[in-house]
C-alpha cells in the first residue's frame, strides 16, 4: 500500500514537520531551581484549549522552589490535569499532538515524553435539539458533532455496565474515532464481531459523517433502500440498543447508525411508544399507507388515464376528462413534469436557508401550481395527487427512507405509462423481489414478514401494549430474550363482580 505520508521515525523529524505550519508552537519553560533544566511545551495553538493551557503554565510557575524539577515525570506531577500519558512512541505522539494534546519534552530525555490532553471543543454546536426527527411527545434530545458528548448522552440513559463501547480508528487522513456501542445482555456477539470486522477492514481517507460509514459497511450498495437506521435521536438509539441492535457513531457526526435493521424499523417513530398502543398502531399504519400511496398514486393516475379509464366510475371520469381536456400532453409527460417540479422544490428547499425556504414553498407550491393549471399544462386533479403523494412521502420518520420512496416513484410511473396497472404491479413485484433479497448485516430485510416470524409481528405493523412487547425480537437472535417481566394479566372477571 502506498501511503501519501512518509513515515516519521523520530520525534525531531516529527517536530520539524510540524513547525512548517504557523500554528505549531513550542515554548521553553526554564526552572532555575536545583539544576538548570529547560522543558519544552509543543502544541498546535489551533487545537488546544487556551484557558487550560494558561492554567497549566500558571500552576507550574507557582511550584515551590524547593521541589526537584529535573525530569519530565516530576514536572508532570505538578500539572493539574487528568489523563496524562508518558510515552516514547512516535506514532502515539503524532496522533496525540494532532488531536490537541500538549507535548512536554526536553532535550535531555529523548525517550520519554508526556502528552497532556488539552483538546478544545470550540467551534462545535452545543445545542442538541433534534433537527431532523421531530416528535411532539417525548424527549427532544438529539446528538451533536462531538462523539464524547454523544456517548455521554447515551450512557446517562443506559445506566448499566452492560453498555459496552468499543473504539476503532478509521480513515488514513482523518483518523476518525468510530465508536461501536452494544448492550452485552442484549446484542448477539456475532453481530458485534461482524460490524467490527467490517469497520476495521475499511480503507478510506476521510470519514465526514456516519452516513458515509453506513454505505461503506452496508451489505449491498446497489439499492435505493437504506440498510441501517440513521438517527439523531437519543431515545431511538437507546431503544435499538435494548432490542439487541448495535449502534455505530463516528466523531464529528450527529448521527448514529443502528443495525441490523429491517424495512419496518423505518416506519417506527419513538413517538409510537409514548402514545397509547392503539394510537401508536394507528399512526404506524397511516405511515405505511402513506408510503404505499406516495409510491403508487401518480403512477395510478397515469395508468388510469392512459389505459383503464373504464375502472373508475362515470361521474369521476367526467371530472377527470373535464380537468384534462385542454392539457396538450400525454399523461406521462404531465405527471413527470409535476413530479420533477416537486423534486425541484424539495431539493431547493433543502439547500436554502430556512427563511428563504418558506418563501420558496409559497412561490413553488401555490403560485406555480395555480399557474400550471391555468396555463393548461397539467390538470388540477393531478396537482392534488402529486402534492398529496409528496406529502405522504415525508411521513416516514427516517429521511433516507423517504428519499428511496421518492426515487422509486419514477420507474413505476414509466412502467404505468407502458403497461398500465400491469406495469405498476410488475414494478411493485420487482421491488418485492429486491426487498426479499436484501440483507442488513446478513439478516433478511423484510423480516418479520419474510421470513415469517409470527412472534415478532406484534411490534411491526402494529405496536402492541407494553405487556406484550416485553421480549426482544427473535430475528435478531439476541443474547437474552426477555426485556422485562410484565405484570401478570388480570383474571377475567364477569360483569359486576369483584
Amino acid at each position, binding site marked *: 500500500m502506498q501511503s501519501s505520508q512518509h513515515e516519521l521515525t523520530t520525534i525531531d523529524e516529527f517536530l520539524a514537520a510540524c513547525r512548517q505550519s504557523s500554528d505549531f508552537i513550542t515554548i521553553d519553560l526554564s526552572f532555575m531551581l536545583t539544576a538548570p533544566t529547560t522543558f519544552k511545551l509543543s502544541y498546535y495553538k489551533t487545537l488546544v484549549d487556551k484557558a487550560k493551557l494558561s492554567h497549566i503554565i500558571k500552576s507550574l510557575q507557582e511550584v515551590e522552589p524547593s521541589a526537584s524539577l529535573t525530569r519530565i515525570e516530576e514536572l508532570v506531577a505538578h500539572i493539574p490535569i487528568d489523563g496524562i500519558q508518558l510515552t516514547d512512541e512516535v506514532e502515539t505522539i503524532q496522533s496525540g499532538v494532532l488531536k490537541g494534546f500538549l507535548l512536554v519534552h526536553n532535550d535531555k530525555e529523548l525517550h520519554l515524553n508526556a502528552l497532556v490532553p488539552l483538546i478544545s471543543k470550540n467551534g462545535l454546536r452545543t445545542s442538541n435539539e433534534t433537527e431532523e426527527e421531530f416528535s411532539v411527545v417525548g424527549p427532544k434530545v438529539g446528538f451533536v458533532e462531538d462523539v464524547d458528548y454523544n456517548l455521554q448522552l447515551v450512557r446517562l440513559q443506559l445506566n448499566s455496565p452492560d453498555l459496552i463501547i468499543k473504539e476503532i480508528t478509521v480513515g488514513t487522513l482523518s483518523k476518525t474515532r468510530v465508536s461501536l456501542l452494544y448492550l452485552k445482555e442484549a446484542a448477539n456477539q456475532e453481530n458485534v464481531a461482524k460490524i467490527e470486522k467490517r469497520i476495521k477492514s475499511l480503507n478510506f481517507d476521510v470519514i465526514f459523517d456516519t452516513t458515509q460509514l453506513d454505505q461503506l459497511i452496508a451489505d449491498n450498495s446497489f439499492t435505493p433502500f437504506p440498510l441501517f437506521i440513521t438517527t439523531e435521536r437519543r431515545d431511538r438509539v437507546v431503544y435499538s440498543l435494548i432490542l439487541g441492535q448495535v449502534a455505530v457513531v463516528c466523531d464529528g457526526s450527529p448521527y448514529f447508525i443502528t443495525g441490523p435493521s429491517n424495512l419496518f424499523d423505518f416506519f417506527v417513530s419513538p413517538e409510537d411508544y409514548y402514545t397509547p398502543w392503539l394510537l401508536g398502531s394507528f399512526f404506524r399504519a397511516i405511515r405505511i399507507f402513506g408510503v404505499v400511496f406516495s409510491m403508487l398514486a401518480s403512477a395510478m393516475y397515469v395508468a388510469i388515464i392512459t389505459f*383503464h379509464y*373504464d375502472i*373508475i366510475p362515470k361521474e369521476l371520469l367526467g371530472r377527470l376528462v373535464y380537468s384534462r381536456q385542454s392539457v396538450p400532453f400525454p399523461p406521462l409527460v404531465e405527471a413527470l413534469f409535476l413530479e420533477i417540479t416537486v423534486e425541484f422544490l424539495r431539493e431547493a428547499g433543502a439547500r436554502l436557508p430556512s427563511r428563504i425556504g418558506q418563501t420558496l414553498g409559497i412561490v413553488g407550491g401555490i403560485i406555480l401550481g395555480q399557474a400550471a393549471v391555468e396555463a393548461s399544462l397539467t390538470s388540477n386533479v393531478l396537482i392534488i395527487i402529486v402534492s398529496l403523494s409528496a406529502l405522504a412521502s415525508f411521513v416516514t420518520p427516517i429521511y433516507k427512507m423517504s428519499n428511496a420512496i421518492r426515487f422509486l416513484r419514477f420507474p413505476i410511473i414509466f412502467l404505468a405509462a407502458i403497461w398500465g396497472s400491469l406495469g405498476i404491479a410488475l414494478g411493485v413485484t*420487482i421491488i*418485492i423481489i429486491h*426487498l*426479499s433479497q436484501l440483507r442488513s448485516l446478513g439478516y433478511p430485510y423484510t423480516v418479520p414478514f419474510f*421470513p415469517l416470524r409470527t412472534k415478532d409481528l406484534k411490534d411491526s405493523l402494529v405496536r402492541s401494549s407494553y405487556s406484550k412487547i416485553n421480549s426482544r425480537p427473535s430475528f435478531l437472535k439476541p443474547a437474552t430474550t426477555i426485556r422485562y417481566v410484565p405484570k401478570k394479566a388480570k383474571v377475567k372477571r364477569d360483569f359486576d363482580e369483584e
Partner: protein
Amino acid sequence: MNGVVSDKFSVSPMHLLFVMYVSLVSSGTMSFQHDIAFSAGHDAWISVIIATLYIALLVWMMFFILNRQKQEQAYLVSINNRYFGKTLGTAVNLILILYLVIGSFVAFRNYLQIIHVWVFPHSTTWPIGLFILLIVYYAISGGFQSVTGLCLWGTISIFIFIIPQLITVATRLHLDNILPVFNHPIAEIATSSKQMTHEFTRCEILLIAYPFIREQKKAKRWAYWAVLVCGLLYLLLSMYAIVYFSQGQLEQISWPTLSLFSTLDYPLMQRMETLLITIWIVKILAIISLGLWAACHSMKLTTKTKQRTSLKIFMGVIVILLYFTKNEEQAQMVTNLYSSVGEYVLFLYIPLLFAISLFMKKRLKEE
C-alpha cells in the same frame, strides 16, 4: 451438493405453506370451473373435494417417500437415481425437468392469454411477456429464499384481495342452483375430478424443495395446511361459480372467476377483474419462478450444469415456445399436452415411487 442445505439458503418450515400453496394454485384458478362443469355440471364441487383429498393422499405419499431416504438424500433427483438406477434415473429426471419447464410455460402462456383477452385486446403481449421473464430471472437469481419470498407475497396479496370480494358477491348468489345434489353418475364426477387434478400438477415440487426446509419434522403440518387452504379456495370458487352462473353460462364462459369479479363495482372502482389480474401477476411470477427454480436446481443435481446457464437455456425454451404458440388453439394444445403428462405424474409416477419405497423398506427388513 450433498447434505441438507445450509441455513443461509434454507427457509423455516412455515414457508412450506406458501411454497406448496403456490405450486398447487396455478393460473387455472381463473378458469377451472368451466372445465369441471362440463362433465359434472352443478355437482362439480364434489369433484373438487375428491381431487383435493387425492392431493392430500399424494402429499402423504411424498412425505412417506422422503422419510424413507437418508436425510441428506431426501430429494427428487437422488430418489430417482436410487430407485431406477443411474441411466433410467437420469432419463426420468430430465423428463421431469422438461415437465417443470413446460409447467412454467403453461402458467405463463395462460396468463398472457388472460391479459390479451381482458386487459389489452388490441396490442401484442410479447413485450410484457419478455419483461415478466426478466423479472423471473431476477427472482430466481436470488435463490430459493428469494423465490419463497415471492411465493409468500403472492399468497398474501391474493388472499387480502379475494376474500372481501367473495363476501361482497355473497349477496347475489342463487343458492338453489346447487340442488339437486348428487345428480350426476359417478363416472361423470370421476371425469370431472380427473379434470380437477390438472390444477395440482405441480405438487411434485415438494420433493425438490424439501431439502431447503429447516426442521423438516415440523414441515409436514404446513404442507397439509397448504392443501387444505387450496382445497377450500377451489371449493369456494367452484361453488360460487355454480351458484352464480347457470349451467349454460358456465359452459360458455372461459374464465368464470374473472366474469364473476367483473360484475362487482364499488364507489371508487369498477371492473374489479382488472385489479384481480393486476394483483394476480405476483402469484403468476411466483409460479413461474418456483417451477423454473425447481427445474434449474434439479438440472444442477442431475447433470452438474450451473443454474445460471440452465436458467438461461430454459428461458430460451420458453421464449421459443411463446413464439410458436401464437394463437389460443396452439396454447391450448400445449396446455392439454402438459395436463396429460401431469396425469401420468399424479396417477402413475408418484404412486410408483411410493410403492417402490414400500418395497424397499421390506427388503431392508429381510436383510
